[in-house]
């Protein structure tokens, strides 16, 4: 990924009042119903077709990545953890490619710290976490700091936009 493309893909998108209302409402979740979008559209006072069109546009412009289930990984029998690496600056690109080659890597952020690469691992089984960590250590030659969640404090995930 080139720097120019990255910058373009992360430039802010202008939203109008309808977009904001849609995002704010949908951050609370979508009802489990045959016509969930029709229900939300009615709440917002717009038509179902209009809402779907707006959502497509928000998805195409990269504001929304997806509508999906927020899973409890542990209850699904899957594994989930946050891991970090201390990557030498001149090796950062190679290590990024090596880490992102693993389909289990769900997010990967560069952060300003000696531990400068932070990624989330999501696996089908809990025991697969340790395997993937060992594979990442072998692929990168670096020690992985594994920091699984021990307790979650519930927030109302809502960013007013």
């Amino acid at each position, binding site marked *: 990924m080139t720097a120019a493309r990255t910058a373009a893909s992360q430039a*802010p998108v202008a939203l109008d009042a309808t977009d904001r209302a849609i995002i704010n409402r949908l951050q609370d979740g979508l009802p489990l119903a045959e016509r969930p979008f029709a229900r939300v559209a009615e709440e917002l006072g717009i038509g179902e077709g209009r809402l779907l069109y707006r959502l497509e546009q928000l998805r195409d412009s990269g504001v*929304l990545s997806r509508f999906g289930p927020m899973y*409890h990984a542990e209850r*699904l029998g899957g594994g989930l953890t*946050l891991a970090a690496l201390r990557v030498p600056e001149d090796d950062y690109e190679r290590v990024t490619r090596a880490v*992102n080659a693993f389909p289990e890597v769900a997010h990967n952020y560069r952060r300003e710290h000696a531990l400068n690469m932070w990624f989330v691992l999501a696996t089908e089984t809990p025991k697969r976490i340790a395997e993937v960590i060992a594979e990442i250590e072998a692929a990168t030659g670096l020690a992985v700091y594994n920091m699984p969640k021990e307790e979650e404090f519930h927030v109302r995930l809502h*960013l007013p936009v």
Partner: protein
Amino acid sequence: MSRTDAERRLRGLLEKGLPLTPRPWQTLAAQAGMSEDEALACARRWQDDGLIKRMGLVVRHRRLGMAANAMVVWDIADKRVSEVGRALAAEPAVTLCYRRPRRLPDWPYNLFCMIHGVRRERVLAELRAIIERQALANTAHQVLFSQHAYRQHGARYTREETT
């Protein structure tokens, strides 16, 4: 958790996201090989069982102009960490809050929270206010701003089936 093949397919499809169609469950059900009613019943059961927290919407903060994304980490005495975690989670600016293990000697922090904002100064001002409200002035903490997201896709727990 016992699952039929159709349920497993539905779960795999759902991880890619709900389609933007008037009857999204009908769309998914057709692909998974079940009826719309069965697909919805499945989703309700998963939600009731707590496998799915909610059908949400994943926003990309940067594309909303929320360019500053800070992971704030704290070193809290073990006996107080749950109490402080609950207090931080109740702060409106905090979007995620978890207790995680320390990794001594390099990493003494055991409480992690996320604060998003339009600009760094705003996030840091918000953090100062939180420190004051929660009396955390003497608590060791660090702010790790993200410089770049290299990958953002949802977690995938179901392997793609090659058909």
